[in-house]
């Protein structure tokens, strides 16, 4: 099987062809947004981080921004910096390894927001013009990495939509593609199953380590995690504990061996199934998948999560018939539990929809423009 994507100089394939306007610090968000809004073909990435954070978190933010810039859905990148948050040379150099055009504007050096918007728009406009000349080509589906996420889950997520998405992942991986999922809290109570599927003992230990690390955070706060995860909405829908939610969540990655575990913001190498550490909260969890290099995201929802991502199409999948009817403007694919089809048959249909979206078909979130307000996860506090 194949899809039609944008070839990049480093050999990667984009499913979208945006100029990424990436804010390097929360204080530059407005300028980045103004540039992205006035130049057709741009996608904004804004967030609340990048200053007043200890070294490990600053490294994590820079690593994430670098990885986002390298995502093949971006034809070029404009970084928007305030200036006093520190140098962004490492981010520039990191993104440059993908051989795509990259430029930056620094608000304090240029003499303020108006000048930065003018210069940033000029640079972004040139990159968008150049990007518009790139044509889609037919490529093998082994060139695809699918990010997998579940959000606003209910019991139908674990019963039907997650195992069907998992079947789609198994099929893509069999053809040489890659899949990645995260949401470490939603491995609690199911980590032994994932660790048993690790491709090496070291990877198995790493899975247990990231889950223990996440659980320690709730222990350190002296609180019961229930109410935060599973969320109030999860509980109202019938999910009783994090263990129950996790057992239903991990099947979204399918059944193949776990080939590696990435820290938040890192990119895996090679094909197969990967895990990335991070929270379940959407604006931060989807960022981790985009940073990992996913060109398309499969997102299962029970109650109805509407959120997409600025430059990676997010396909919303539900198995809840009420959600499908009431929130049809947000749902791309309905997994019909009552229809008698197997998870494998439904997974095949999901993979076909994924390849259509990878080839240019718009998702509901893209069509609505419900794709902004992203964030980056950090482990520590802000000072």
């Amino acid at each position: 099987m194949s899809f039609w994507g944008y070839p990049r100089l480093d050999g990667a394939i984009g499913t979208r062809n945006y100029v990424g306007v990436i804010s390097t610090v929360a204080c530059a968000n407005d300028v980045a947004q103004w540039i992205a809004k006035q130049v057709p073909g741009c996608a904004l990435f804004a967030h609340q981080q990048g200053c007043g954070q200890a070294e490990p978190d600053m490294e994590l933010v820079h690593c994430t921004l670098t990885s986002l810039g390298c995502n093949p859905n971006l034809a070029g990148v404009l970084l928007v910096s305030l200036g006093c948050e520190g140098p962004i040379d490492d981010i520039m150099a990191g993104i440059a390894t993908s051989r795509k055009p990259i430029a930056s504007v620094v608000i304090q050096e240029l003499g303020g927001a108006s000048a930065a918007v003018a210069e940033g728009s000029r640079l972004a406009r040139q990159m968008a013009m150049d990007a518009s000349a790139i044509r889609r080509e037919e490529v093998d589906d082994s060139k695809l990495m699918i990010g997998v996420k579940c959000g606003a889950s209910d019991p139908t997520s674990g019963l039907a939509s997650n195992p069907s998405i998992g079947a789609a992942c198994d099929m893509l991986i069999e053809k040489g593609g890659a899949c990645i999922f995260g949401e470490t809290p939603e491995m609690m109570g199911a980590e032994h199953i994932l660790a048993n599927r690790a491709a090496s003992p070291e990877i198995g230990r790493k899975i247990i380590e990231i889950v223990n690390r996440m659980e320690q955070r709730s222990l350190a706060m002296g609180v019961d995690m229930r109410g935060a995860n599973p969320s109030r909405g999860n509980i109202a829908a019938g999910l009783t504990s994090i263990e129950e939610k996790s057992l239903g969540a991990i099947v979204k990655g399918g059944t193949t061996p776990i080939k590696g575990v990435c820290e938040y913001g890192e990119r895996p190498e090679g094909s197969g199934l990967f895990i990335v550490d991070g929270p379940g909260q959407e604006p931060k969890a989807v960022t981790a998948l985009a940073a990992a290099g996913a060109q398309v995201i499969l997102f299962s929802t029970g109650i109805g999560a509407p959120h997409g991502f600025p430059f990676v199409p997010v396909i919303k999948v539900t198995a809840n018939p009420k959600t499908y009817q009431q929130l049809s403007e947000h749902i791309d694919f309905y997994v019909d539990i009552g229809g008698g089809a197997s998870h494998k048959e439904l997974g095949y249909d999901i993979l076909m929809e994924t390849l259509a979206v990878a080839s240019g078909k718009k998702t509901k979130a893209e069509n609505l423009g419900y794709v902004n307000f992203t964030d980056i996860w950090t482990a520590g506090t802000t000072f």
Partner: protein
Amino acid sequence: MERKAVVLNSKDNVATALTDLQAGEVVEMEVDKGAISVTLVDSIPFGHKFSLTNIKLDLPIMKYGEIIGKATADIKPGQHVHVHNVASTRGRGDIAK
């Protein structure tokens, strides 16, 4: 006939409702190709769980063939199984260790 509830693994002591169910309803389910039947004590909303057996205080609740928590009360067959009678054993910073 449309299935009213599903048992995901033969080790499970709870079933998940596939539609809104009323107290007093008799629900038949398939487990390992055998049929079991439970009379509901409580009404069970779509997606929620009910007990298949007597589950004593502190004993594990099983779904997907795995432990999803432990009973905080004795639970009778057909009763609603949820946060009011099940505690999670993970992420419990509220419990002094």
